């Protein structure tokens, strides 16, 4: 079997049959990544030593007939927002370049518990601020389909590593589209679960009321397996939900017969690339032919979503990033300072990149005395209206389908001088984030330049199963997910 095509099931079968050992998988995978990634930039840090020890321990347990976890020996990568005990976690920022957490994020601990092989940490936009992975202090992550183009962001490395065949699954984080948009641009599956489904403990905070960890995978089934492992209530995260977690894999194979699929007209408006519209509409037609019903719906407040998001997300981000002051950990200025204020100001000025500073300034402004009501409070009200749009829509349909990104992967540097244009990249992913809904992107075709196009699924709260059901059906009837980028990165 080709290296990059292995699913989780393939790995587990190979282990069961004794074809391979986890230690050799870890070594081979790390060697492979080391040899190709300087041309891609998907990884920030490789877990070179620890993962080999972990793999040896798993091999030993298997050999001795002792039980192993559900992802035993499966190589995975984590976005560098997710804390890993003893392995540096940078958020792709100079501020945290040397930060080694003394604790695991809850999702990290759960993956370790399941005996996954944590290969290392994946590239991203600095602190998750961006849609192109170009604001990383470690340089951009490129698109495996065209190295002159962006991988998307902010979880660019998490999507590109899968597309390039480095590993079958990764974890990303999504605040306004940071899992779905790079998944779309790199032609892989990625799901953002319901807000609160997965613990945020130990995940570097961008916007606390929006952030959510989710898996990306080559296949829908692989993502479902990983989501099964990382979901569930966590006493360390007050916002994590108390609800029981269903077995997501059980939703696979249910088909789409009788499924009412809402198609929001606001998601097919100007700015949508013709090729994207065509392939998404083709996908919808195919789903309809397969027994689903397409229901035209309207999400009236969609046009306010981007503005609402950039008020709320920057407000929370400006607050969440206040802890990086150079006092206890992280970057501290090397120049001599004459006061504590000076120390903090210089450390932050040096440690943060331009996009981070831009968002801190925006967020500080909207929370300022005299502006709070006009911006923050008003945005909260609009957020409620956007949520209601979805509630109404879901009285008419079971799931919503739409494009993920209005365009396919754009050239590196294209939007760097125009932050507003970059912000508009998230126009189709932001509304579901504001509503806290589970949502995903899966490949549904390629444009004339061979660049992947993403189909977005949005389900009611806690109904991730419907997404797995619909996406798995589409995947099982199509071959988009099987395409491999040709090049030197895989």
């Amino acid at each position, binding site marked *: 079997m080709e290296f990059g095509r292995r699913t989780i099931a393939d790995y587990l079968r190979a282990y069961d049959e004794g074809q391979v050992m986890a230690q050799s998988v870890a070594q081979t995978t790390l060697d492979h990544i080391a040899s190709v990634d300087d041309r891609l930039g998907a990884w920030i840090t490789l877990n070179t030593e620890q993962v080999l020890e972990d793999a040896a321990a798993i091999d030993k347990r298997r050999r001795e007939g002792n039980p192993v976890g559900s992802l035993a020996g499966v190589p995975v990568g984590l976005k560098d*927002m*997710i*804390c890993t005990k003893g392995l540096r*976690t940078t*958020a792709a920022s100079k501020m*945290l370049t040397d*930060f080694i*957490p*003394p*604790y695991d*994020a809850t999702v990290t601990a759960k993956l370790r518990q399941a005996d996954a092989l944590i290969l290392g940490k994946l590239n991203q936009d600095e602190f998750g601020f961006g849609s192109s992975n170009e604001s990383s202090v470690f340089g951009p992550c490129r698109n495996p389909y065209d190295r002159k183009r962006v991988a998307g962001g902010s979880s660019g490395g998490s999507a590109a590593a899968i597309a390039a065949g480095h590993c079958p699954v990764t974890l990303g984080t999504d605040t306004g589209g940071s899992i779905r948009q790079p998944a779309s641009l790199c032609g892989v599956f990625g799901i953002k679960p319901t807000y609160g489904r997965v613990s*945020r*403990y*130990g*995940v*570097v*905070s961008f*916007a*606390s*009321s929006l952030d959510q960890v989710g898996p990306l995978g080559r296949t829908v089934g692989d993502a479902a397996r990983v989501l099964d492992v990382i979901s569930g209530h966590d*006493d*360390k*995260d*007050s*916002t994590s939900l108390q609800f029981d977690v269903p077995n997501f894999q059980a939703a696979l194979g249910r088909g789409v017969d009788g499924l009412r699929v809402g198609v929001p007209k606001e998601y097919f408006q100007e700015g949508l690339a013709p090729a994207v519209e065509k392939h998404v509409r083709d996908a919808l037609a195919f789903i309809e032919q397969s027994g689903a019903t397409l229901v035209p719906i309207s999400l009236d407040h969609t046009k306010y979503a981007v503005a609402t998001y950039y008020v709320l997300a920057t*407000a*929370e981000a*400006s*607050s969440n*990033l*206040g*802890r*990086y*002051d150079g*006092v*206890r*950990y992280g970057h501290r200025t090397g120049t001599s300072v004459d006061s*504590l*204020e000076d120390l*903090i100001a210089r450390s932050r000025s040096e440690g943060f990149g331009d996009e981070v500073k831009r968002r801190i300034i925006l967020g*500080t402004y909207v*929370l*300022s*005395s005299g502006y*709070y009501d006009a911006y*923050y409070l008003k945005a909260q009200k609009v957020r409620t209206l956007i949520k209601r749009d979805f509630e109404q829509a879901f009285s008419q349909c079971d799931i919503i389908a739409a494009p993920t990104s209005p365009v396919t992967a754009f050239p590196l540097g294209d939007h760097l001088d125009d932050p507003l244009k970059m912000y508009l990249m998230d126009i189709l992913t932001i509304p579901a984030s504001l509503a806290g809904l589970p949502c995903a992107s899966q490949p549904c075709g390629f444009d004339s330049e061979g660049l992947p196009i993403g189909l977005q699924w949005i389900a009611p709260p806690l109904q991730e199963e419907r997404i797995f059901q619909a996406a798995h059906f589409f995947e099982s009837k199509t071959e988009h997910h099987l395409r491999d980028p040709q090049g030197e990165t895989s």
Partner: protein
Amino acid sequence: MIRSGWEAVIGLEIHVQLATASKLFTPAANRYGDPPNRNVDPVVLGMPGVLPVLNAKAVELAMRVGFALDCEVHKRSRFDRKHYFYADLTKGYQITQHLHPICTGGKVLATIDGEDRSFRLNRIHIEEDAGKTIHDGRRGISLVDYNRAGVPLIEVVSEPDMRSPEEAVAFMKALHQVVVATGSSHGDMEKGHFRCDANVSVRPVGQERLGTRTEMKNINSFRFVGRAITSEINRQIDLLEDGETVIQQTRLWDDDAGVSRAMRSKEEAHDYRYFPDPDLMVVEIDDATYEQVRASLPELPRARKQRFEEVLGLSSYDAALLTQSRARADYFERVVDQGIEAKVAANWISGELLGRLNKEDKDIEASPVPAHSMGELLRLLAQGQLSGKMAKQAFTAMIETGVTAADWLKANGGQITDSAAIGEIVDRILQAHPSQAAEFRGGKEQLLGFFVGQVMKETRGKANPQAVNAALRAALKGET
């Protein structure tokens, strides 16, 4: 006294550390006096991605204070973030309750010069404490200790109802008594459990409009609160009498120098950029918990004092003395519960016991005579097995050697009350002094004292005086 023609307006904000085992949002210990940076963890240190989880005990302790002060205790409250940068603030914001505090309204009752006074409260909210920054000027460095960071506090905010430093002190003392009595705080001011900021302004008597106020921070003892406020009132009156103006500013009180210094003016005031903390849920207290906390409230010092006066018949002075601390009142009640008359118990505790403990600078908790021993002593006294004089001797021995009253009685012999035994002694004395006996019978009543003295001498003070009296009179009359 405030200078004639002027009136002061004073409002207090008091930070009270809650007596929880752990911090407000994490299991790290809430403990004073450890080596620096011992009671920390990733949450206390504000490390990336870690999240706060609310300590339910802290909410309960805040509720207790709210109920005790007759506040409206809200079943729903919320935490906000208050932003500013300082080395001892680990997240760049403090988690506090800005818009929806746990308690609003309420009042503090105090007694000033025997007069009952009520001071209104604005609110009580829960928040986390900051660490401590120590500036080492000699070495040119600053050191930070995060042991205090994240310790749960309530901030009790008064209305500007006080008009003199004396009232402010009375308010503070009354509040202190309540937070300790409810078990919400240890109230140890030396350890910073109870810290006061004072808002002070002055205006000419009769003027309705409030003067410009200043906020004095860091007044950490009862001793200094009066002095600090007096100093600020005088500073403001001096300014105004000289035709200058008071600048709205924050001032830092310096206990050692006995003066306050300007810290920052209104123009330099922070914009705290409050907004609801998205890492925490709205605090919701269910009906059962609400009622349970309310019902578990102990009797408060003022109510107890009133009961001691009205039900147990103590003087106002004794009742006040015995309710000054919960331990004293508990001790007193444990003695009374053994069947001792309240007034007797009060006299012995306030006179003998507290007098003795005061001399040794001890609290009643450290009394070498526990309440049950005191009860035993007073029971023996009531039963007449000990005379008043003997009881005092026994008490001294109990304090000094730790014996019990019963032991002392056994070793020293009890009071002689048996009338037959006393009759024998009386007969002996009368026979030994025939001429005085004759004089007595002849009408010289004054000689009774002489005979009593002789009996006491013979019994080394142990004979019951009433019984001796009765026996003497009977013996003398019988021979008539």
